[in-house]
């Protein structure tokens, strides 16, 4: 079931100032997380990841994911503490056609003489707000015992 991305998340993915990390898993179960500046949100609300390197580890892991229905995770964070994690699955990879060709030209205009291997379409399945204040508030509401006593002391150390 696809999850919907809110306006804040879409804006973060659209910003060059945000940090985006794509995490995949290799054949032995080792996670592989790498900063990936070229992740976008398309008109259908899916993430588009532009893979620039044909034989990269991320690319191989994504191929394995689409073949064997494995999940990936994308984190995006902004300068003001905004931080989101999107779990999802690759549903399609484009190696030709108008969307691919558009991004091929776009990425070359931005970076110069680079290549584009594929445009991966990742369908979001779960969206988690990783902003630390939001997470603390959730944690204290759900698990009020999970805190150190000094935080409750009359006299703060």
């Amino acid at each position: 079931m696809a999850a919907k991305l809110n306006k804040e998340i879409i804006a973060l993915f659209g910003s060059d100032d945000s940090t985006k990390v794509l995490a995949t898993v290799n054949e032995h179960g080792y996670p592989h997380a790498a900063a990936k500046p070229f992740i976008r949100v398309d008109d259908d609300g899916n993430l588009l990841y532009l893979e620039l390197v044909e034989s990269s580890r991320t690319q191989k892991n994504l191929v394995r994911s689409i073949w064997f229905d494995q999940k990936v995770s994308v984190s995006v964070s902004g300068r003001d503490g905004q931080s989101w994690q999107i779990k999802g699955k690759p549903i399609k990879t484009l190696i030709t056609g108008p969307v691919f060709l558009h991004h091929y030209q776009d990425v070359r205009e931005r970076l110069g003489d680079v290549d584009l291997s594929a445009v991966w379409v990742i369908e979001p399945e779960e969206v988690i707000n990783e902003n630390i204040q939001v997470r603390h508030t959730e944690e204290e509401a759900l698990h009020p015992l999970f805190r150190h006593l000094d935080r409750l002391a009359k006299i703060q150390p």
Partner: protein
Amino acid sequence: MAVALKLVESNESELDQVLERNPEFPRLVAVKIDAQRRGVHYTEQVLKIVDDSVQMRSPYLFGSRDGEIKDLPESLLLRDGSTILTDPTPLAQDPYLVDLVDGKPALVDEGQFVEFVDFWPKPLYYDKKTSSGIPMSHIISARPQRLNVFQSSYCYFWAEDKGCKFCDIVTHTRQQKDELGVPSRLKPQDISETIAEALKEPGRFTGICLTSGSVIKGQELFDREVDFYIETLQAIGENFSTKKFPSELIASAFNEKQLARLYEQTGLTSYTSDLEVLGEDKFNWICPGKAKYVGYREWKQRLVRAVDIFGRGNVGTGLVGGVELAKPNGFSSEEDALKSTLEEAESLAENGVTTFYIVWVPRPGSYFKDQQNPSLDYFVRLAQGLHNLRVKYKLPIDYNDYRRCGNHPDGDLSRLL
């Protein structure tokens, strides 16, 4: 025939059964194999959404399973970016349907949804003509990321009635010439102009493949064929700023002198010479022309010697997978066929030659026209076996992978190498 469908869960099919037996084999690659093995039939309904952006069938070296040249989509792409090279097939032969499901083109089998597919996008140069007035689509045909140059579609083995028994190259050439006016031999100028036009579309192509029938003429066997390829490759090379450009030549088994000429005088980067079937007795029976003029052992040796010139991972041989089971002289069991084929492929891999296969399709213009290709299970295990050899011997297949070719299921598996 049109079948309006909604997305439904599929019942146990042969595809599902094979995947249950081979759980580590990717389902999408198995779907590709099965669509190639059984062919496809486009419903009237799906053809209604085909517009001018879709690449329609263009001249090709080999014919289709229905023996006709019709204005239908060239072929299909799966959602993992892999190519299905398949052709229109009569309904009586139980092909997959390409139909509309939820308004999108999809493979359908026995009324059940299998996979969504995309049509191949038409390259811009397909709407243009060379300065000599020939449609560029008749000069160079496109795959999703590759350009195919079939500069001569006559094979001299056929003149002695020694053509390969699975092949319909000459039958199809005559049909294309008669029905479409496709030239049976291309001129370098037309090829160069078409390449120049294709390169104007950024991101559209990653490789060029040349092939044609065998030409036995010349001072030495195949000299004329080599001359022709050099002339063509040099014409192509005019369009590149580098001496070498990603390219594959699928040709006869040339001697070292001929291979050196090709490598040194052109931008060619990789070389394939198809044994078609592995095992000397099967080769002699199925490929009598190749057997007569070169011979099985010498063909293998020439492949090995080509590695010294083109480098490891840049030399390969293609098989018409499954033809080793043709009747009456082929293997009688799939188990024996698989064992023998993989043993022979290993002897090549040990020497740096990679082996890949296409799915054998008994075509109406070939000697084997009335035969039946093997089971899906066989093709799945053949793909896995050839891939395993590539892993074992650390043999790359960059020049002939899912993108630069797209016609080898075992090569698709190498996306994980």
